């Protein structure tokens, strides 16, 4: 073998893969060629461990215009000639090393995926996971990531409308930073990442190319890292001003007929952008690295091809139209250079001036080996599954104290102190901003609107990966249905450990199965996604964390709901259950169980038929104007859901419902498929009629009113006390004060 083990390790190519390259190529690759294999065959670009599993997600849906893995992002038809483009992506590893720039460039990258398709980005969401804020190191990561999202996102004029933030010791060394972007495009102006036919030109637009981020795809995102210091140079630095200009200029270009396609430069830079565009166009391509504007002198072809310098786009220009396109970029003050062209022979050729530096078949570069491993169920599941939740003692604290403690815990507490650092109103379409179950946006010019959310619960997936996958989808869709929107598409970000470990592979396989199952049951296809593997440090994997980004559609956006109680005297009902029962089983994986008892145990469960029924009933109740508010029951259970409705509305609640079984499980258990709604008394019968027709159970809980949350014999807490605990909980911990 002509290369050292060390070189292969740096590129994350196995010896077996190297042998396959030599065999299929019929010769040894040179350094540049090997680097291109390393990037395109990386987990990040080639999905070699995940692709066989992700095939389980494929479904036929009439709305789906572009499905997972086909393009930069997924696309769904929403009627009126419009389509929504959406994707979620991780930037976990860069954020662990350099939180500000890691998070900032994560936003930049996902936004480029959206406008590359000709869509105007209209919303950002972020799903974040950190270790406990009681540790200084985690506070630094948390502060840096939030500042990075704020610093970059606010500058580019896209509202950041929501997402979630949660904390667990599992993420201490390895935060999860997932960014989602959503865009809107006229259906027939959708742009693809293709060269089109031979002869079309490869035009590189935007920032100069530097040495930053080389091996980002193969190194950072495709293996476990031990010493973060050695990897610092592979984290890129973002320039949001340039990104904003790129958005406007590329959208202007996309509106013309001068181009065949647009491709963003993400992981593995030019190498992957050019090769993928050529593959999509059924072409080969040739380019001259000496035509690529550099940030520094003396860069080798290898460095130019693999650089991950930010804010660059590849525009595939129809031959003969380069002057018109260049004029648009010139007007925006952007550098643009033709660096190569599509060819007819299926070969990627890299030149430096007249010298041929590398020559590889496009089809070979994009045909990464796929691994279907055999997962093995982790042993420790025996203990968590067998754990006797009945034997958990009732807490010594009163139910009211437990509620206040939960409300102040960082996972449940208000995230307002973070969201107010993100501009969530620019573009003037934000109907419901961050903090509710789902964000709601209108679409100017039509009566339609969309709802957006992200959801995921690593603890559930850790305890039961298959069910956890189902619950992630169900909760995301429930968030949308609570707002009144019909779930129509999903995008998933799968954050796992090292897939070469049998137990991690098992988690991944089961979790994806669960997502596929729930996605089919709830009628919302997964249209795009991203897999982030090797999330572990020093041998400990993060909780398997499937984050689901979900899109819902309103035919009439004025018919939407929020969690806030609206008027004293309104009745409060629980949809999805006929009574409030305290089953120990509902404490499985619950926030309460970990916070109060220090336990992560049990087996979470969900019934998808019940889930569908409650969501249908809630959507009808909202769109028919029957209910005045709706709020999903999730972390913290029924008591926390009621408290949040009270705090948001500044109104109390008088509960009259009986509790059977354990009071802690009844109030704080996380039984799925439940939504709290309020309704004026004269509409109660209509609401019950809807529930009956849709097959959803319901129970009367009490009525809105007074200035405290009271449940006879159990809870008595003023709205003011709850608001204080809930509003200040996260800020106190972020400032380093004890929770």
């Amino acid at each position, binding site marked *: 073998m002509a290369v050292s083990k060390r070189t292969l390790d740096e590129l994350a190519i196995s010896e077996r893969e190297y042998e396959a390259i030599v065999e299929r190529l019929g010769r040894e690759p040179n350094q540049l060629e090997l680097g291109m294999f390393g990037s395109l065959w990386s987990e990040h670009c080639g999905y070699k461990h995940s692709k066989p599993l992700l095939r389980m997600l494929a479904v036929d849906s009439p709305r789906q215009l572009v499905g997972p893995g086909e393009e930069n992002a997924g696309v769904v038809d929403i009627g009126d000639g419009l389509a929504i483009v959406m994707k979620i992506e991780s930037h976990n590893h860069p954020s662990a090393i350099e939180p500000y720039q890691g998070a900032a460039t994560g936003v930049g990258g996902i936004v480029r995926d959206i406008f590359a398709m000709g869509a105007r980005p209209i919303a950002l969401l972020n799903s974040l996971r950190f270790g406990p804020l009681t540790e200084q190191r985690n506070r630094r990561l948390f502060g840096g990531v939030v500042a990075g999202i*704020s610093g970059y996102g606010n500058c580019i004029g896209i509202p950041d409308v929501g997402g979630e933030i949660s904390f667990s010791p599992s993420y201490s060394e390895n935060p999860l930073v997932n960014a989602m972007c959503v865009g809107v495009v006229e259906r027939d102006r959708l742009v693809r990442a293709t060269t089109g036919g031979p002869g079309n030109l490869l035009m590189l637009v935007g920032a100069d190319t530097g040495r930053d981020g080389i091996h980002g795809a193969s190194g950072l995102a495709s293996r476990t890292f031990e010493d973060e210091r050695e990897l610092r140079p592979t984290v890129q630095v973002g*320039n949001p*001003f*340039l990104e904003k200009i790129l958005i406007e200029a590329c959208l202007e270009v996309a509106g013309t007929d001068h181009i065949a396609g647009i491709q963003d430069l993400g992981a593995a830079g030019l190498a992957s952008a050019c090769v993928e565009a050529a593959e999509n166009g059924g072409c080969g391509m040739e380019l001259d690295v000496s035509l690529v504007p550099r940030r520094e002198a003396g860069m080798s072809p290898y460095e130019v091809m693999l650089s991950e310098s930010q804010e660059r786009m590849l525009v595939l220009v129809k031959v003969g139209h380069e002057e018109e396109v260049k004029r648009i970029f010139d007007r925006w003050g952007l550098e643009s250079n033709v660096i190569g062209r599509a060819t007819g022979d299926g070969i990627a050729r890299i030149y430096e001036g007249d010298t041929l530096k590398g020559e590889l078949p496009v089809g070979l570069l994009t045909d990464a080996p796929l691994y279907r491993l055999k997962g093995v169920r982790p042993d420790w599941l025996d203990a968590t599954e067998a754990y006797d939740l009945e034997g958990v003692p009732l807490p010594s604290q009163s139910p009211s104290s437990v509620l206040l403690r939960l409300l102040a815990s960082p996972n449940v507490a208000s995230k307002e102190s973070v969201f107010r650092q*993100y501009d969530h109103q*620019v573009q003037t379409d*934000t*109907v419901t901003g961050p903090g509710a179950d789902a964000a709601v946006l209108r679409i100017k010019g039509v009566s339609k609107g969309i709802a957006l959310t992200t959801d995921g619960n690593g603890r559930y997936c850790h305890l039961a990966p298959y069910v956890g996958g189902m619950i992630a989808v169900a909760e995301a869709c429930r968030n949308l249905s609570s707002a009144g929107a019909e779930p129509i598409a999903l995008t998933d970000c799968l954050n796992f450990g090292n897939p070469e470990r049998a137990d991690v592979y098992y988690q991944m396989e089961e979790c994806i199965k669960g997502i596929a199952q729930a996605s089919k049951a709830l009628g919302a296809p997964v249209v795009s996604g991203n897999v982030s593997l090797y999330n572990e440090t020093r041998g400990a994997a993060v909780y398997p964390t499937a984050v689901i980004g979900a899109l819902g559609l309103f035919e009439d956006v*004025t018919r939407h709901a929020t969690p806030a109680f609206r008027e004293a005297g309104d009745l409060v009902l629980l949809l999805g259950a006929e009574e409030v029962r305290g089953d120990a089983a509902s404490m499985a994986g619950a926030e309460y169980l970990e916070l109060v008892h220090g336990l992560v145990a049990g087996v979470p469960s969900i019934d998808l038929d019940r889930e569908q029924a409650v969501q249908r009933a809630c959507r009808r109740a909202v769109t028919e104007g029957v209910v005045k508010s709706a709020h999903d029951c999730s972390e913290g259970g029924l008591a926390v859901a009621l408290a949040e409705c009270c705090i948001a509305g500044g109104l109390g609640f008088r509960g009259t419902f009986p509790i059977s079984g354990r009071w802690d499980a009844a109030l704080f258990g996380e039984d799925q498929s439940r939504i709290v709604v309020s309704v004026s008394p004269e509409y109660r019968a209509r609401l019950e009629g809807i529930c009956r027709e849709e097959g959803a159970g319901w129970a009367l809980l009490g009525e809105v009113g007074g200035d405290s949350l009271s449940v006879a014999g159990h809870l008595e807490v003023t709205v003011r006390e709850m608001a204080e605990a809930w509003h200040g909980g996260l800020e106190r911990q972020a400032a380093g004060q004890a929770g």
Partner: protein
Amino acid sequence: MKFGIVVFPGTWSDMDCYHVVTDVFDQPAEYVWHQETDLSAYDCVILPGGFSYGDYLRPGAIARFSPVMRAVERFADRGGLVLGICNGFQVLCEAGLLPGVLMRNVHQQYRCQWVHMRVESSSSPFSRAAAPGQVVRIPIGHGEGSYYADSSTLAELERGDRVLFRYCSEDGEVNDAANPNGSLGNIAGITSSAGNVLGMMPHPERCCEALVGGEDGKAIFESLLRSVVV
């Protein structure tokens, strides 16, 4: 009434302003590219929010040198109405059309939230549709909105009734708790000595429709429409 909406590279409230002017108020509007030099076609010029030229160095510090700003100066000198919102306010201060400077928020963070501001006078072309003392609920979205000027400038502003808007509580009380960024005197918006140039940090274009949270911002645009005899 014809509006010109200035677009610098990095501006992002341009489309929001355009939408409000054309769709909510049914008035003609055009975008004005930062390299243009003739504003004679317009009755009112809006400098919208955003991060012009990336706001590198200092917000508005680079934008003030763009060709369109010389045209804005001439336009203002001739009495044309100029409305600078957020970054537009910063640019107007940098260009010397308004006194003072917008500094980094005292808490060092960007703030996007609803605030209240009190209309201090209704004799301005930007506020004549409002009552003096009227409280307006309006969003802010900025990291550098802490208004500062030396004491003599402040005194001059006060004497000339040029402090048009102040951050206040929901019931109109001007106090520290209602000040979202540390501005001196809770200043949210000021006018030029001639009164035809307004700079304000809050975003009136973000609150002209009930569906997106409120309509209080309409008062400013309605005032403008009343100011021009067509």
